């Protein structure tokens, strides 16, 4: 057992004293500030220990774990595989459906079961609706980080409409427990398709309005362009995923490149950051990728609704799920990036090991690397553009 250090070794490199023009030595001290765990812009209970010199950030040390709820330990102690699903919901509470999707995909791959076509289409519709809802939170709170409060409420207004659709389907508005192993908990209600189509028609102009209000606002562009640039190689080395990776100009989307469900049957293109306002991979690029992904999701939803086949919503699976001993790593594209579940089965009715590879956790680890040398105000924006959900970071 080695001793745990309270501070990392990164403190070693610090700028020395400053020489004034008159030859005197000016002693400048770095200040260590705790941003969080209770702070308006850490999106939960993240604690950033920041070393600053004036407003300039010298180092950032994230301290996480304030929201640790022992997901992996819980998963090992359930009585069966299905009981893990509600816990998955609680990982990323802004995009619960996508979490479930990843987990049920992992178990289904272990069981090697074929799903009815209708299930896959409904799953795609739900996952994309959830993606829009989650991106709305991301861009809305990002507006708050930049000091604009109004877009946040616009975003939440539209998110409510999506939550209404979910409530209609499964009765829950935040944590759904809707995707089950081998299918869905129940079919969509008859009026769902019309309502979802209505939402799509309503929401397209709203994206434009949101862009006019926030994305292309002169001040907003000034604040976000060229800030927190994440170069391609760093993004890959830190295994960033989702809008973080695409914002850096890497054309990579698991829905297309590691296909699952029925995404390969639909027509769509991943959106990447092109550096329109500054450098490729800056904060603005990550923001615009989210904005454009919402439009892409709308088109996926419309296509999936149009192609929605009739059929059963539950595959024939054994009552007691006992996968053969073995292991599987399944990953899906959630709004925050690649959410992978590494599930090991020992042949019994409960998972032997469930590891959640949380995109927010991985994306957050790049924060210190890209925020050195910027200002406190920028750090807030960079942290906002990573789009962390602490439920997923801390699991």
């Amino acid at each position, binding site marked *: 057992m080695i001793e745990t250090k309270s501070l*990392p070794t990164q403190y070693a490199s610090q700028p020395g004293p400053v020489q004034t023009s008159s030859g005197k030595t000016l002693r400048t001290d770095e200040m260590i500030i705790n941003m969080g765990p209770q702070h308006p812009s850490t999106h939960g209970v993240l604690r950033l220990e920041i070393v600053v010199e004036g407003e300039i950030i010298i180092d950032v040390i994230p301290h996480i*774990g304030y929201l640790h709820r022992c997901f992996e330990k819980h998963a090992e102690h359930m009585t069966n595989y299905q009981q893990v699903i509600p816990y998955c919901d609680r990982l990323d509470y802004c995009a619960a459906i996508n979490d479930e999707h990843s987990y049920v995909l992992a178990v289904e791959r272990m069981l090697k079961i074929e799903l009815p076509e209708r299930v896959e289409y409904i799953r795609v519709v739900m996952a994309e609706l959830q993606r829009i809802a989650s991106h709305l939170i991301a861009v809305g709170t990002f507006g708050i980080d930049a000091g604009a409060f109004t877009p946040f409420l616009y975003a939440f207004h539209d998110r409510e409409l999506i939550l209404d659709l979910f409530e209609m389907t499964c009765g829950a508005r935040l944590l759904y427990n809707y995707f089950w192993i081998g299918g869905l908990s129940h079919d969509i209600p008859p009026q769902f398709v019309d309502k979802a189509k209505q939402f799509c028609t309503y929401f397209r102009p709203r994206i434009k309005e949101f862009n006019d209000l926030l994305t292309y606002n002169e001040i907003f562009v000034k604040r976000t362009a060229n800030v927190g640039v994440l170069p391609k190689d760093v993004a890959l080395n830190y295994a960033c995923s989702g809008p973080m990776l695409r914002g850096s100009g890497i054309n990579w989307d698991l829905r297309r490149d590691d296909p699952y469900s029925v995404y390969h049957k639909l027509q769509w293109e991943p959106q990447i950051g092109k550096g329109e306002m500054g450098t490729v991979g800056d904060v603005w690029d990550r923001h615009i990728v989210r904005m454009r992904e919402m439009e892409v999701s709308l088109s996926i939803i419309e296509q999936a609704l149009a192609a929605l086949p009739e059929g059963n919503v539950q595959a024939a699976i054994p009552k007691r799920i006992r996968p053969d001993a*073995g292991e599987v*790593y399944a990953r899906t594209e959630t709004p925050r990036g690649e959410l992978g579940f590494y599930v090991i089965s020992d042949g019994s009715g409960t998972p032997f090991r469930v590891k959640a590879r949380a995109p927010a956790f*991985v994306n957050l680890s790049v924060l210190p690397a890209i925020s050195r040398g910027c200002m406190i105000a920028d750090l807030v924006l960079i942290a906002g553009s990573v789009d962390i959900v602490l439920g997923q970071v801390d699991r």
Partner: protein
Amino acid sequence: MTAEEILNSLKAKFGDAIVEAKLDAPQPWIVVNPSRTKEIAFFLRDDPATRFDYMMCLSGVDYNNGKLGIVYHLFSMVHRHKIVLKAFCTKEQPHIQSVTSVWATANWHEREAFDMYGIVIDEHPDLRRILLPYDWEGHPLRKDYQVPEFYNGMKVPY
């Protein structure tokens, strides 16, 4: 590259550092020597034929037979192929070499493995607990973990 080709190139290069392999699994895996993971990782990342530039996941595992392990899920953005590496150690000697210098993303994952399983990651730049409080005792994801009665005077089992 298929898993078999990767295994062959690894065997040609590292010989006995490759302990065993299971290629008929749905996701083939290769077990490597826990004290040589770094050089193997560097080779896998930099060799033009493999180019594993993206580490999807790193998980600690307790196999419940006195054996701990770390599982590396690797992916290549260039060649679009996958491989799973495993490194095992014993509970008495829980030491595995760090791959943080190869894939920066491993940093937090390895800290998590240390936090949850007590696997000491050799050569890690910043090995601290990550999810649990700094003064927590024990490593909760081990199968033989006993929940403590008290933590800082607070009753733990509720």
